[in-house]
């Protein structure tokens, strides 16, 4: 029943958050461990109230399924923060009813704030001058080595051995 309601609710919403939809599908498929991560991602973005309410409702259901009563109660309280008149379907399990009753008793909580926008990153430091780059000095070294090798080749290769041999000038 809840699933049908949720489907109708989400279907009536023009743009369903993809992560909320993923959470819904995981819940329907009883892949409960996949629900909470999708909900966390969905709730990190601004959601329409109906979708936000459904997200907290699903969150409460999953926490209840894992016997995490405090977390389920908190999720219900946040659902109540979205809609103070929120109530479970009549065929809801006594466990859920009890948790929601506890939430009502404790009072609603404002929906968790979505993560603040990340502050703008500080401007990237200006690129280091070319002479401070490792590849610059490597290139210089290679060029010098090549130049020296070229000179050696140029001169050394042109110094043949004479009939009297070779010698050195001190």
């Amino acid at each position, binding site marked *: 029943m809840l699933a049908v309601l949720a489907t109708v609710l989400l279907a009536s919403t023009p743009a369903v958050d993809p992560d909320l939809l993923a959470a819904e599908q995981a819940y329907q498929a009883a892949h409960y461990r996949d629900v909470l991560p999708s909900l966390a991602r969905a709730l990190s973005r601004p959601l329409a109230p109906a979708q936000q309410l459904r997200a907290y409702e699903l969150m409460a259901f999953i926490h209840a399924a894992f016997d995490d009563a405090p977390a389920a109660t908190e999720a219900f309280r946040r659902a109540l923060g979205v809609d103070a008149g929120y109530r479970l379907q009549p065929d809801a399990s006594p466990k859920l009813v009890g948790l929601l009753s506890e939430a009502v008793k404790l009072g609603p909580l404002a929906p968790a704030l979505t993560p603040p926008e990340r502050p703008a990153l500080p401007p990237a430091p200006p690129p280091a001058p070319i002479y401070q780059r*490792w590849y610059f*000095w*490597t290139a*210089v*070294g*290679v060029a*010098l*080595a090549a130049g*020296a*090798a070229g*000179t*050696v080749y*140029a*001169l*050394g290769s*042109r*110094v*043949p*051995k*004479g*009939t*009297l*041999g*070779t*010698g*050195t*000038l*001190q």
Partner: protein
Amino acid sequence: MTRAWLAALALCACNPAGALWLRVEAPFAVPTQVDALDVQVTRLSDKKAVHQSSHAIATAFPHTLSLTTDDLATVGALEVQVTARKGQTLVTRASAPVTLMRDELTDVAVRLCECAAP
């Protein structure tokens, strides 16, 4: 980077500052008239003998000798003197000036002739 510098320095260290290609020409028969050559190279700036060598020869002229130097001080004006001997007897002697060029193979020819007085 350090290795590149070391390689460059090593190559620079092996690089001759200059080289001399000496060619000795003479009309003498070998070994009946000449059987040895003495070569002396003098640096004109300080009159220092920068090379001395003796060579027994068994083949006909011309003869050649390559000389290299790593000393930049030797780059410059030189005088090459060649002495032809038959045993210990001096046959003739001749010399030629040459300017050793840096990073180049410098040619110099010394012509021995019968007219040269010992």
